[in-house]
């Protein structure tokens, strides 16, 4: 199943260069819907009773001598991410149908979008670290071009900044991966990049910390955590809407996904020792970025900063290292994927109506577009963490997880959640209320409407029926904790 997904995306991307300029968008939509169908069809064969183990495993040797192989497989956690990827890619391609910003050079545009999807699917399904790295980097070039060619005002600057930040930080990851593989060669006598084999490695504490930090540099920039976040507002702010949607909804999740999958599982001792640091770092990230958010006057940068804040929740919940926390962080990842995508579509629509991202100019604009206002409302309230919205479960479970440590931590998380509610309310207030608008704005319709529904309907659905999502990673989060317990005797 996984290789067929990759092949679909690859062939789809390559063929999109050969198709007529005016038809290529339909082709891209067809390819992305095909991947969506494959992902959902795969659910029939996915064994939920052992969702914590890897399924659909395939393996092809790439360089035998160095132990590199195209080793694919998904467990419940990565399956959730696959669903998010397929959904977001489909929605962002659908959105691009009526986006004026991307109406030039369509062939290349859809080529890059499909290539991004290829990279994302690869990231979430590879079990070999070097192959993971290849796919991780594979999303870089397409995004660089998408931002740089079809972006807004400072596009080239933002694209370059994005590329350099991610590229340089991920070189540390490459060094870390190769360090692990050569450590494996020292201990076992042969190289291996396989995740499952590297998990069995017992590292010396100093070395473990060193490699953990190398991995962390890459993923802290990608996620991003606060002092390393400065690429994000620029990249998200200047990318075309579909690019921002993909960036916020899925590309950021590559960082958090990898932290949970690799940092915690491969370096259990260091992760356990660094629990307070990481949790506090996450909370500081929430608070600071919430603060930065409130001073933004550009809708898109506003949403971008709010993304950083949400990522803080994911990180702090994840590093609480109890099963509730892990569940919370995955839920929050999924929820944020949906809501941030919705928010960026909102920003894109406001731009297409008012030709500006300025928050004060767009005051009260939503009143003129009732259907749009309802959709944005759904997204806003589920992002804020109101019961019934998807983010509620993320935040609620985070507080529960924090409660297992201490009440003080729980109160801290609660306060942080409060902070993140403030900016959403501020945005809602500005867009819905105080309006003396005279102009008539055309309401959301057509492909724009459908793509927004695709992102907001699951957000509400997850909020109301969270067990549908928990089904995927209930056993996974238990498994992670029991694995850590077995290894290091943590509480």
């Amino acid at each position, binding site marked *: 199943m996984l290789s067929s997904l990759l092949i679909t995306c690859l062939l789809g991307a390559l063929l999109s260069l050969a198709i007529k300029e005016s038809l290529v968008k339909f082709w891209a939509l067809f390819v992305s819907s095909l991947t969506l169908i494959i992902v959902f069809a795969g659910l029939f064969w996915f064994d939920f009773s052992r969702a914590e183990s890897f399924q659909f495993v395939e393996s092809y040797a790439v360089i035998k001598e160095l132990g590199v192989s195209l080793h694919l497989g998904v467990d419940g956690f990565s399956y959730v991410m696959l669903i998010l990827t397929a959904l977001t890619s489909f929605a962002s391609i659908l959105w691009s149908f009526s986006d004026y910003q991307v109406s030039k050079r369509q062939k290349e545009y859809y080529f890059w979008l499909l290539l991004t999807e290829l990279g994302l699917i690869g990231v979430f399904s590879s079990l070999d670290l070097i192959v993971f790295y290849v796919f991780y980097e594979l999303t870089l070039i397409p995004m660089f071009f998408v931002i740089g060619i079809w972006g807004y005002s400072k596009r*080239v600057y933002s694209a370059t900044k994005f590329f350099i930040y991610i590229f340089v930080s991920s070189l540390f990851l490459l060094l870390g991966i190769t360090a692990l593989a050569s450590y494996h060669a020292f201990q076992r006598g042969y190289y291996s990049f396989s995740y499952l084999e590297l998990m069995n490695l017992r590292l010396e504490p100093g070395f473990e910390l060193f490699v953990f930090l190398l991995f962390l540099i890459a993923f802290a920039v990608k996620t991003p955590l606060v002092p390393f976040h400065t690429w994000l507002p620029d990249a998200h702010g200047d990318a075309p809407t579909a690019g921002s949607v993909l960036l916020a909804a899925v590309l950021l999740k590559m960082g958090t996904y990898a932290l949970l999958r690799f940092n915690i599982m491969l370096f259990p001792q260091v992760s356990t020792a660094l629990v307070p640091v990481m949790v506090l770092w996450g909370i500081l990230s929430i608070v600071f970025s919430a603060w930065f958010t409130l001073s933004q006057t550009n809708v898109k940068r506003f949403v971008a900063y709010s993304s950083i804040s949400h990522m803080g929740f994911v990180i702090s919940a994840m590093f609480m290292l109890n099963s509730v926390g892990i569940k919370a962080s995955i839920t929050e990842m999924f929820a944020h994927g949906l809501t941030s995508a919705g928010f960026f579509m909102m920003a894109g629509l406001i731009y297409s109506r008012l030709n500006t991202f300025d928050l004060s100019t767009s005051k009260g604009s939503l009143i003129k577009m009732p259907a749009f206002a309802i959709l944005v409302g759904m997204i806003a309230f589920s992002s804020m963490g109101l019961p019934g919205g998807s983010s509620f479960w993320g935040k609620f479970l985070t507080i529960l997880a924090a409660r297992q440590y201490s009440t003080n931590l729980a109160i801290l998380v609660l306060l942080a959640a409060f902070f993140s509610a403030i900016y959403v309310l501020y945005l809602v207030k500005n867009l819905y209320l105080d309006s003396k608008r005279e102009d008539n704005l055309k309401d959301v319709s057509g492909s724009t409407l459908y793509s927004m529904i695709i992102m907001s309907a699951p957000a509400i659905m997850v909020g109301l029926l969270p067990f549908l999502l928990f089904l995927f990673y209930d056993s996974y989060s238990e498994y992670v904790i029991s694995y850590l317990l077995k290894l290091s005797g943590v509480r």
Partner: protein
Amino acid sequence: MQEFITIEIPDLLLLMPELIVLFTGFLIFTLDLAFRRVSHIVGISLSSAGYIASIMALLLIYGKRGETLYGLYVRDGLSTTFQLLLVFLTLALLVFFYPYFKKRLSLYPEFYYILNFSLVGAMFLVSSYNLIVLYVALEAVSIGFYILTALLRGDFQSKEGALKYLILGGLSIALASYGAGFMYLHSGSLDLRNVFLYGQSDALILGLVFLMVGFAIKLGAVPFHFWLPDAYQGAPTPITAFMASVGKVAFFVPILRMMPLIQGEILREWTLAIATVSAITMIYANLVALNQTDIKRLLAYSSIANTGYVLAGISTASKTGLKAAGFFLIAYAITSFVSFIVVALLERFNDFKTEIEAFLGLRNISPAYASVLAISIISLLGVPPTVGFVAKALIFLSLAESKLWLLATVMIVATGISAGYYLKLLSKMFMFEPKSSMNVKPSAFERLTLSIFGLLLVLLGILPIFLFEPVSKSVEAILSR
């Protein structure tokens, strides 16, 4: 190490590829003298026939090992693999050079046989342990390069570059031969395999230092690089492509060959020296490249930086390190060849200057050139899915294996700096509208060759085994000796 002199009948089969190229060179030379000016059709067809025959000979004796000419000449996996690359790249050069020189009104048939003689030198350089043979081969390659650099006779820069190259190249060869002399003094043998057998002495250290400085000048490692940007910029661009690919490989392989022989105490200092040179080279070249406005100078500095990366792999002195260096060398040779060739093809068009500004909106002018150049730049930068990424990852693997964390960090920083100018080039090509409307139409044959090279860069990145396997085997061969 013969006890008494025996008459050895040279095993010509081992030497066949070189002999074919040499014979082709002499044939064209003779024809040129006999008929005053040999026509270009004859030159191209004879040369390419010779190269193809040579490649076939190489494939025929692939896997064969042996020595001949009293051990002066060694045929092993390393020499066969690298010779295949050298001949292949030279053959590809024939496709591109004619239109360039025709446009610059500087067509001389000397080109063909000098190219042949240079190639023979390079082929000997990758397949000998003997210091004298290395010296002669080094001279053969270099003299060819001096002449080829000055081949644009009306052009001032071309002559300037050639003269600088001549002076510093002469110095480098003098130093290398001086080093060889010291090595002989130390061991009483000119064969590198024997030189290191007799422990350590001051003479050996002096010899190694001089030899290294000599080769460092040839490779353009900082601080011995000053001739390189001028020569690369001044030379006709197809020749630059030739020097950056064939030249670099040929000058590097003797060092690769030497590494497993150096043993004992001296090894630590030797690797430390190489690591230092490598670190300085990477950082300096990438920093200077950031400021270049001429594409050929920029690529020249990038070539210096890449020398640094290969040296980093060599400095580990481990099996993985040498394999990584070998792989990197081949990957770099192909990649830089492609990038210089695209520049050469673009230079044919009237309005085109070699400045970076000329690349504004290249994608709109010629998607074919722009995308092939983009692939080669992405490969130079080391981003998957290109062969450049695999090469860099292998270097990192070897550095991690030898626990050279500091050097690895320097390499990360250097690669990060290099992203600055590579991305500038990429964004100039793809993200801006063109200033002028050049009329650029590559011929069908060029398009075919270019797209083969572009595909090669990507395919070798996805399926690196086809390159890694031969490199790995050939490095094992020199290690097991």
